């Protein structure tokens, strides 16, 4: 019962009502309704032995031990004090009734006592006058009465402070995730209200970095010290992940402030004194920059940009006669993307000179290296036949060059190696004789 809410209404009656109340009685009722309500008491019947000042029998109504009324008698009786039809309103949500009777209840007309209803009556806190302690109105702007309570609200552009009763200019805070935007102190360019605790979070897509650009009109109260301004009471704190937060104040605009981060938190704080004219900034974003790829020996990086940013792609092409190599293996193609962390997702490949492999063996002939080495690109070889027993078709020597397609090709761009044709009818030793 102790934890249950008090009833919103009820009935209280003298003992044995509607029979006459006993003599020598002293009984107390502690009535209550829920907090936020006043207790209203309405008598439906009161018949207590009348006497001057209700000396013999009385029903006393108290609030916090303070006597609000003392009733006895009957309606229209000459003596006593009858409440009539007017209800009795408690200053609070409690009321105490005390019935006291003397030792006699005169015959033949015995008195019946009393019967009363009590009920909770809402308090219109908003209509109450301002407290006398000087703490200001209940709600600094708008007050809304509710059953058993009240609530405060603020006009557009303001927001309720944590005390739930006073309003302050809205910070306009929140999360800013657009690629660019403007932030300013509440009420800017008017001076900043006191008691601010505004938070602004700029959070854009990873892979982009935020640049803050404060306007020249920048003023946050500061306390001058030998070491420069001390942001003791008012400050704008710039927090960048993995970096020490930086408190800004003073009259000099920070100007352009690169953050190198895709998320920045700004906390603007003013206390209840001093003056800050406020601040404004425009933030922009740019893609994370990747280091320009180094030059490729015997190859080139495309496209060739002055700088490379997040999501840029590069390709590497080798010069003719060279092949793409990565981690010791040849690759057909190479493309790398600038990642959101500013790193290329693949390290650069190398261009190695191609080789055509060992030239095909020539039956009844051989091959001679004319220039170049290790069968590399542009190496030149020459096929020859085992003369005088074989000869190349046509009799000419044939040079082959290691081409970019890794084949040995002759001057006519033909990859087919020659054939050695047997030499017929030409003995190495001819018959000779001098006798005639």
């Amino acid at each position, binding site marked *: 019962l102790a934890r249950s809410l008090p009833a919103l209404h009820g009935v209280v009656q003298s003992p044995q009502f509607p029979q006459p109340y006993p003599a020598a009685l002293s009984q107390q009722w502690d009535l209550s309704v829920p907090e936020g309500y006043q207790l209203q008491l309405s008598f439906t019947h009161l018949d207590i032995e009348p006497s001057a000042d209700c000396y013999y029998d009385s029903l006393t109504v108290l609030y916090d031990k303070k006597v609000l009324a003392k009733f006895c008698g009957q309606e229209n009786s000459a003596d006593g004090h009858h409440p009539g039809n007017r209800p009795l309103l408690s200053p609070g949500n409690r009321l105490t009734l005390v019935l006291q009777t003397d030792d006699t209840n005169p015959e033949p007309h015995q008195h019946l006592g009393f019967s009363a209803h009590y009920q909770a009556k809402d308090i219109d806190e908003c209509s109450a006058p301002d407290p006398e302690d000087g703490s200001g109105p209940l709600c600094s702007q708008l007050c809304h009465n509710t059953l058993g309570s009240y609530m405060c609200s603020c006009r557009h552009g303001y927001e309720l402070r944590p005390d739930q009763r006073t309003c302050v200019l809205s910070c306009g805070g929140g999360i800013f995730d657009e690629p660019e935007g403007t932030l300013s102190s509440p009420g800017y360019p008017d001076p900043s209200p006191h008691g601010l605790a505004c938070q602004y979070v700029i959070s854009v897509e990873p892979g982009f970095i935020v640049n803050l650009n404060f306007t020249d009109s920048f003023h946050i109260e500061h306390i001058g010290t030998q070491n420069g301004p001390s942001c003791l009471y008012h400050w704008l704190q710039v927090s960048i992940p993995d970096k020490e937060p930086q408190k800004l104040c003073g009259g000099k605009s920070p100007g352009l402030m690169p953050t190198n981060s895709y998320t920045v938190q700004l906390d603007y704080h003013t206390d209840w004194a001093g003056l800050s004219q406020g601040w404004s900034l425009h933030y922009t974003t740019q893609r994370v920059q990747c280091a320009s790829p180094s030059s490729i020996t015997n190859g080139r990086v495309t496209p060739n940009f002055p700088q490379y940013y997040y999501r840029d792609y590069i390709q590497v092409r080798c010069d003719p006669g060279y092949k793409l190599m990565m981690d010791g293996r040849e690759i057909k193609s190479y493309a790398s993307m600038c990642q959101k962390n500013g790193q290329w997702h693949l390290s650069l490949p190398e261009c190695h000179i191609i080789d055509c492999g060992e030239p095909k063996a020539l039956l*009844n002939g051989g091959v001679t290296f004319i220039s170049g080495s290790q069968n590399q690109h542009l190496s030149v070889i020459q096929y020859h036949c085992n003369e005088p*027993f*074989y000869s190349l078709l046509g009799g000419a020597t044939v040079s082959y060059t290691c081409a970019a397609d890794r084949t040995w090709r002759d001057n006519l761009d033909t990859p087919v190696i020659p054939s050695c044709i*047997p*030499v*017929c*009818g*030409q*003995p*190495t*030793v*001819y*018959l000779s004789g001098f006798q005639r």
Partner: protein
Amino acid sequence: IMGGEKAPDKTIPWQVMLSVDGGRAGAMVIGDRWIMTAAHNLVQKGKLVLKEKLRVFMGDNDAEKLAKLTPLGVASLHPHPEYKNPDNANYNHDIALIKLQQPLTFHAAIMPLCLPPEDTIYKTGQIGMVSGFGIKEDDIIANKLRYIRLPVVDGNKCQASVNSAKAAMPTETIPVLTDNMFCAGVPEGGQDSCTGDSGGAYVLMEDSTKRFWAAGIVSWGVGCGQTGRYGVYTRVAKYISWINKTMEDN
């Protein structure tokens, strides 16, 4: 070879020595897998000899040394399809090809002969050379390769020689002389090819290139080195198409 001389080493590198059932014959190299000879070396009594019985030697001028070498493997025998000589009286189309199992690698002792263009005309009196390991003038089989230079004989003179032989030897069946043959030799006799030389090459040299080419194949003759008689050779220029086709088809 009658009236000839020993051939120095490497002077006749196309010379091939054949041994068929113990009989000796000649042949010539014309490609790295092909040898040309007379059909009558491979067709005996109307039947093609077994290729296993044919032994092929080359690379030396000494018959004894050659005979000690491992014979070259024969892949197939290709006598001219029109060669029909059941009673040794018709040497028309006396030409055959032998395909070797393995290709030859040419060197100073083994080189091929050139082949003439189709239907090349042989000039009467032009000196050619015939070689072989056959019988020499003392009727002894030669152990060393021999050669003799002999002129191409006019066709009419050759036919007359054959006719006179028929007249002189009415009981003998003298083979027929055809356009697919030609004669070479001297009327006074003593210089000729002979038994054991058949299948060997009669070569002519092209003046401009100094290359020898296969003009004839030692085929037949009435005796050897007799006066008024000539050696008869298969006219190779008549068979160029057949030679090429046979090699291509095989």
